[in-house]
C-alpha cells in the first residue's frame, strides 16, 4: 500500500487549492468575533442607558451616539485603522465603522483647510450612505402612504 508521493506540480496545485480557503476562514472568524464584540458592547451601552432611565425611543439614539464617539476617538488615535486591518468587515459594518468613515478622511485632509478639507471630507463616505439611505427610506414611506390609502 505504498502511496505515490505528490510531484512538485501536484503539490503546488494542492497548496493553492487549500490555502485561500483557510485564509478566508480566518477572515470570517476575525470579522465574526470583532463585529460580534462591537455589537455586544452596544448591548452593554444600551443596558447602561436603561439605568439612566432612557426610554424606548431615546435608548437606541444614546447607544448609537456613544458608539460613534468611541469610533471617532479610536480613529483619531489611529487605533481603528489597525482594528480594521485585522477585522475587515467586522469593524467596517458596525456603526463605529461608519463613524470611522466620517472621521478618517476629515483628519487626513486637514491641510486642505477647514472648509474644503475637513468640512467636505467628513462626507466622503457618509455622503453616499446618507444619500441612498435617506432616498430609499423616503421611497418606502411614499409606498407605505400609497398602500395605506388603498388598503384602509
Amino acid at each position: 500500500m505504498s502511496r505515490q508521493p505528490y510531484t512538485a506540480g501536484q503539490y503546488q496545485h494542492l497548496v493553492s487549492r487549500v490555502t485561500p480557503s483557510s485564509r478566508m476562514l480566518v477572515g470570517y472568524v476575525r470579522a465574526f468575533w470583532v463585529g460580534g464584540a462591537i455589537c455586544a458592547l452596544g448591548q452593554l451601552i444600551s443596558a447602561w442607558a436603561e439605568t439612566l432611565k432612557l426610554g424606548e425611543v431615546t435608548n437606541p439614539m444614546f447607544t448609537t451616539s456613544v458608539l460613534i464617539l468611541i469610533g471617532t476617538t479610536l480613529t483619531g488615535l489611529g487605533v481603528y485603522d489597525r482594528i480594521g486591518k485585522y477585522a475587515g468587515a467586522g469593524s467596517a459594518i458596525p456603526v463605529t465603522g461608519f463613524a470611522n468613515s466620517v472621521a478618517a478622511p476629515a483628519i487626513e485632509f486637514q491641510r486642505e483647510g477647514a472648509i474644503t478639507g475637513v468640512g467636505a471630507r467628513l462626507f466622503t463616505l457618509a455622503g453616499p450612505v446618507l444619500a441612498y439611505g435617506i432616498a430609499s427610506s423616503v421611497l418606502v414611506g411614499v409606498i407605505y402612504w400609497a398602500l395605506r390609502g388603498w388598503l384602509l
Partner: protein
Amino acid sequence: METIMPFLKAFVVGGLICCVGQALIMNTKLTNARILVLFVVSGVFLTALGLYKPLVDFAGAGATVPLTGFGYSLAMGAIEGVNRYGLIGAFVGGVTRTAAGITAAVVFGLINALLFKPHMKT
C-alpha cells in the same frame, strides 16, 4: 444565564451580519463604500418588508449596531412619519429617527479633526 443571553444574542447575530460583509469583501470586487451603501439600503428594504424587525426584537444591538440597523431606523422612521403626518412624513421620519446618530458622527468627526493630527500611513 438570563443576564448574559442578550449579550450572547447580540454577539452572534452581529457577528454573522459582519460575516455577510466579509463575504462581499473577499468574494466580490465591491469597494467599501459600495458595501456600506448596500447594507444601509438593504436594511431599509428588509425593514419595509417586515423582515428586519423580528431580528431587532431577537438580537437587540446585534441587529441595530450593524449598518443594516441604520437602514432599519430610517425605514421605521419614515413609516412612523407617514402615520403621524401623512405623505410629508415620509420626508420627515427617517432623518428624525436617525438624527442623533448623524449629528453625533458629524460633530464628533469635526471635533476629532480639530484634536488629532493625521497618522503616518505605514
